[in-house]
């Protein structure tokens, strides 16, 4: 899917959502959620391709591929949580949005734990040199 398809589909979905919202707001939210899921699937495919290429290009450096994967995973989580939290806020569910933010931070913390552990190990190694 190229950028023009994305733009055209987005405009159509927006117009459809406005029309549906007048009669049935619940279906409008559902439509938007389905659209976001499709777009994320398309975007993530590109992002996985990018991750593969970046990891390949830094192959010679110790720890780089391993931790770059974690970094890119964290970025994907940040973007997804940002999107879903915005959708929740738009549909009037502020508390769900806050919940998403909190859970995202916890997931990010657990995701970065190997980096922090390795960093502590390396810093200890530097102090012991």
């Amino acid at each position, binding site marked *: 899917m190229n950028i023009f398809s994305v733009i055209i589909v987005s405009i159509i979905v927006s117009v459809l959502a406005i029309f549906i919202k007048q009669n049935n707001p619940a279906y409008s939210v559902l439509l938007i959620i389905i659209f976001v899921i499709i777009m994320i699937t398309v975007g993530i495919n590109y992002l996985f391709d990018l991750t593969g290429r*970046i990891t390949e*290009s*830094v192959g*010679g*450096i*110790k*720890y*780089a591929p391993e*931790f*770059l994967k*974690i*970094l*890119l995973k*964290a*970025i994907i989580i*940040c*973007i997804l*949580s*940002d999107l879903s*939290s*915005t959708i929740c806020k738009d549909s009037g569910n502020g508390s769900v949005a806050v919940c998403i*933010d909190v859970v*995202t*931070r916890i997931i*990010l913390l657990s995701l*970065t734990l190997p*980096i*922090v552990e*390795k*960093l502590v190990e*390396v*810093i200890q*190694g*530097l*102090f012991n*040199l």
Partner: protein
Amino acid sequence: MKKLFLIGISLIILTTYPLNCYAVEDGFDSVYDIAPDNVKDTLSESDYKIEGLQDVIDIISNEGIFSLFKIAFSDYSLPFKTVTTLILISTISCSLQLLINKSETKKIAQIICALVICIIIAEPLKNLIISVTDCLNSSGVFMFSFLPIFATFLVTTNPGTSSVAYTSTIYFFSELTVFISRSVLTPLSTCTFAMSVVSSISDGIFNNLISGAKKLIIWILGLVTSIFTAITSIQSMITSATDTVAVKTGKFIVGSSVPVVGGYVSEVMNTVIGSLSIMRSGIGLFAIIVLIILFLPVTAELLIWKIGIKLCQVISFGAENDIGQNIINAFNDVITVLISVTICVFIGMILSICAILVFGGVK
């Protein structure tokens, strides 16, 4: 009969133990033997297949001192690969500004970027510090063994010199410099880097401590250079009277490009050039060769890292990731200290050897 017997005994003794020649030959062999193992390996594994002192001197006489560069340099692709990765992460960090709207999530993502930068930098830094410490250790051990042999050699070839008395002073200062660099400066700069990393992530809690440690490093480096200023007091004896345009340009470039000790290096450049011209041949030249082979790869690697990090600083300037920038700056500071220490010790050692030569009566 008695006279003939005495003459015969004398002839036998003289032919069996030719004192002066024996001392000289032994001096040459001993000097090659005391060269650090990695230097001997580098020499024997080079294209020239050097197996002894005479081979080294032949190559230098035939191809000039720059032939050593071919021997000493190795593969330096790692700094550029690492810098490319750092630039890549900076770019990712920069794109985060556009992709993520929430400032809290953005901050977390930036911290993760900074942590990854730190991990990628820390491993090569550890290896660099190990190489510098090894280099300082090897040079210290070499000088420890070389200076007494050199002094003995000078006394044998120039009887009645005052070099032995002077050697102990030079020897003491040379070892002191190596000790300070290895045991104080290098660990201190490593600790500064570690504190900078922690400080960058935790809103600058160690900032005052870091600036204090940096001042201490510069102060100690100043002390070390002052020690060797004592040695450069022999400058007037060594330095040639003419200060050519090439030397002046070299002094300016070194003074403005070498960090921290640039002024000192620029000031003693004439002395170093004078020293090298004195030691065109013999054991002194071999010592210089050993020191060049020991120090050149490390210094070259450090300089390449410095260039790479500067490049990274320039390219990722607009990334607006302060944490990542701080870590890169801290890494740059450590590299700067390591370059200063390496150059300072290297020049100090050359001057030590030359000082002993001058006081040993070599003109």
